């Protein structure tokens, strides 16, 4: 089986890892850094991803996308109250958010695919082989739509996603592998955009998730916003300046807020400096760790309720937890560590790099799937209850939250009216009583044989697979025939749309390659023309007039072709020119050789 890599597709940072001699390792980029910032910028020269794109956050904020993971599997209404924070324009089509970049719009899976492609290229360059299969991690509390969107992103990037794994569970794999731990552990994963808590029982290589909980909209980004708002308010009162009209400065404030937050994990006080627009000088202030803690305390408190709920669901008390493991960059904050320590009554572990541990675990899971690792097995759960809408708009639960996956439930449907030919079914996910308070996953119409009311008996099987993704099947109990079910996702791309995006992405990839070849050819042609002109001015006296005419002709030909769009033609004219200039360069080398010899003779004589 070809190699499967593990990918941590994070809100802020993404990484790719693979198994090397029985050990997972993260692939570094050319700079040696293992993290690729999850930032995509659309520049005049094309698309760029990662570290170079980060520079564009303040330069072209309206065309630089960050934190796209927050939009995966979402509609516009879901993010209404944070629209103001994002400098790029968002719209919606078919229940899916679209991001406007220049003249085109992109769905979140397409943007995520660009990050995945970058990681794909990175690992391909590192290993010198083509990679087409991956395990991708998602927050444990991701719902079906968000998981499906992640799978779509993989497809668009040219990756077969063999498994979607929950981030805290992946972390536990990496952690358990190294420590050979047994017992009950809590994984507290607080990253850039999401928070997860997972409780696991580790025994003889089985990693059994007992309960999971979280918030897919709670992370370091929220802390940054809180601090940025503090700065913006002060800028407004002290400098009478409303920065919201300056998207580039808004980004600068956000980035400075994040940097200050990060510094305060190691220091007790730090200096903040932000340049103001229109020569209004700069805003400076000192921020202390106490001030930071006080202003974000309530956000950090919001991570504790899910922890208690998970404990309750697992039937455990904090005292039952043998070890607490910290994952995610935001767990570097001293206040976070303190609150976690207080809740569980023990010192949390952070021996493994919290930035890399999820990717490492994804690589371990990839190795399990490819048959390399055979002694470990992950038994994960579905984070949210799955059900259908029944009469009166009430949700009837079919699979309860924290049920081990794969999980299935069967439900029998019949008709209420004679001759009725179909029943509409609305699938929901969530914990609330009323259908409207839960997440709508999908709808489908169950075909019914036209018979007297109550006679048809169609059994529908709802199956949540090992990825936490729902599959629906239906069969007629009277005839034993199965029926194909066309499920229409409420917040997802249709199969056709994904198909088209894969094609687009492939076409773009080719366009990108062609564009790059053209740019390179033009650059090389330019360089050749410059050196040729220089040689002509220095050495035309050394060659025949005919040779000069030939070179001039080749120069003219290349100059016109260079402005065209065909890299091959440019390369051909370059070859012509090189050949025409051959006598000239030979003569010049000869000449300089002669002169250096003369020089030598002189010195030797004296």
């Amino acid at each position, binding site marked *: *089986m070809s190699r499967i890599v593990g990918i941590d597709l994070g809100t802020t940072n993404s990484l790719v890892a693979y198994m090397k001699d029985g050990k997972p390792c993260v692939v570094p980029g050319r700079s040696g850094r293992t993290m690729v910032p999850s930032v995509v910028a659309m520049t005049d020269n094309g698309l760029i991803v990662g570290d170079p794109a980060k520079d564009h956050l303040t330069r072209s904020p309206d065309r630089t996308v960050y934190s796209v993971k927050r939009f995966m599997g979402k509609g516009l209404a879901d993010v209404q109250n944070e629209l103001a924070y994002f400098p790029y324009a968002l719209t919606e089509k078919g229940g899916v958010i679209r991001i406007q970049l220049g003249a085109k719009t992109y769905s979140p899976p397409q943007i995520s695919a660009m990050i995945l492609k970058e990681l794909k290229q990175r690992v391909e360059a590192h290993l010198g082989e083509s990679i087409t299969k991956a395990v991708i991690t998602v927050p444990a509390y991701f719902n079906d739509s968000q998981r499906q969107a992640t799978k779509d992103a993989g497809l668009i990037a040219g990756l077969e996603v*063999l*498994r979607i794994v929950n981030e805290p569970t992946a972390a536990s794999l990496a952690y358990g592998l190294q420590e050979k731990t047994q017992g009950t552990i809590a994984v507290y994963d607080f990253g850039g955009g999401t928070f997860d808590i997972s409780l696991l029982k580790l*025994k*003889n290589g*089985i990693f059994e998730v007992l309960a999971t909980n979280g918030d897919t909209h709670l992370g370091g980004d929220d802390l940054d916003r809180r601090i940025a708002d503090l700065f913006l308010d002060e800028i407004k009162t002290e400098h009478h300046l409303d920065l919201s009209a300056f998207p580039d400065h808004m980004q600068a404030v956000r980035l400075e807020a994040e940097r200050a937050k990060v510094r305060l994990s190691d220091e007790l006080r730090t200096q903040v400096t932000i340049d103001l627009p229109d020569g209004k000088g700069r805003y400076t202030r000192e921020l202390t760790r106490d001030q930071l803690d006080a202003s974000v305390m309530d956000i950090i408190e919001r991570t504790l309720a899910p922890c208690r709920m998970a404990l309750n669901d697992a039937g455990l008390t904090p005292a039952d937890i043998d070890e607490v493991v910290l994952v995610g960059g935001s767990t570097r904050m001293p206040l976070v560590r303190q609150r976690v320590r207080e809740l569980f009554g023990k010192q949390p572990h952070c021996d493994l790099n919290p930035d890399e541990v999820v990717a490492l675990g994804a690589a371990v899971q990839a190795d*399990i*799937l*490819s*048959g390399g690792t*055979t002694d470990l*097995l*992950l*038994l994960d759960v579905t984070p949210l209850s799955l059900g259908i809408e029944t009469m009166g708009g009430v949700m009837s639960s079919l699979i309860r939250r924290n*049920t*081990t*996956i*794969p*999980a*299935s439930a069967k439900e029998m449907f019949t008709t209420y009216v004679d001759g009725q030919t179909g029943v509409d079914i609305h699938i929901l996910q969530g914990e609330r009583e009323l259908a409207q308070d839960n997440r709508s996953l999908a709808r489908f119409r169950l075909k019914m044989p036209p018979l007297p009311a109550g006679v048809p008996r169609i059994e529908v099987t709802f*199956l949540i*697979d*090992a990825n936490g993704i729902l599959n629906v099947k239906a069969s007629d109990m009277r005839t034993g025939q199965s029926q194909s079910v066309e499920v229409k996702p409420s917040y997802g791309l249709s199969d056709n749309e994904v198909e088209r995006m894969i094609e687009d992405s492939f076409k773009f990839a080719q366009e990108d390659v062609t564009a790059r070849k053209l740019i390179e050819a033009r650059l090389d042609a330019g360089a050749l023309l410059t050196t040729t002109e220089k040689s002509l001015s220095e050495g035309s006296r050394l060659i025949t007039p005919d040779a000069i005419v030939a070179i001039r002709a080749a120069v003219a030909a290349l100059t016109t072709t260079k402005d065209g769009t065909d890299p091959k033609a440019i390369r051909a004219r370059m070859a012509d020119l090189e050949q025409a200039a051959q006598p000239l360069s030979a003569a010049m080398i000869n000449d300089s050789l002669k002169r250096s010899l003369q020089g030598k003779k002189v010195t030797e004589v004296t």
Partner: protein
Amino acid sequence: MAHHTHTSGSRDLQMARSMCWHCQSEVSGEYFCDRCVKVQPVSKETDYFTCFGLPRRLTVDQSKLEAKFYELSRAFHPDFYQNKSEAEQTISLGNAATLNTAYRTLRDPIQRAEYLLDLEAGSVKEIRTSPPSDLFEEILELQDTLEAYRASESASEAGRTLRAQLVAEQAALEGRKHEMEQQLQRLFTGWDALQDRGDAAAQARAERDRLLKQMRDLLSNRTYVKNIVTDLVATIG
């Protein structure tokens, strides 16, 4: 025994299942074919106890159950079928889902009892809509208090008093639930002992029916109390 009631249709199904789907050699209830080693679908007719190789009893050895669950998970989990044919992947997925349901059911003493009594004597999950007679007064009073609490200002003096009352009531009901569970546990032991004796005399049958009725009543009363407590917790937070 549930097997006595099989219609001929489901017996046909069972017959079909006793042949390997791949090489057609005989497989009588094994999870893997002796000849071609292909995984076999767990039959819908197999009860959860048989699935785990456990006797049909209300008390189970938890550590044995867990060990068997882990062993079967290693045998069926889709992780280990990535390189296999599509047919095997589908079977692995179905088997793993069945296994997980079976484990969830048998692990919990109440769900286990409901399941086993259902197997032995038909559904026990009758939904109770009115309070059990010995709780009637108490529940009516509780409903009044709940209504008054919902209508009151939570910060007011009256609101605080009502809340305190509800908290006390919650503790009392939880105590009741616990008592019922202990009572059930004793009945479970009695039932298992009766099964162990394997006595088919009229007296034993009467004893069996008596136990069955008591367990059913207690199970539905307990579910009723449990739901009330859940509502109560949801209201007072």
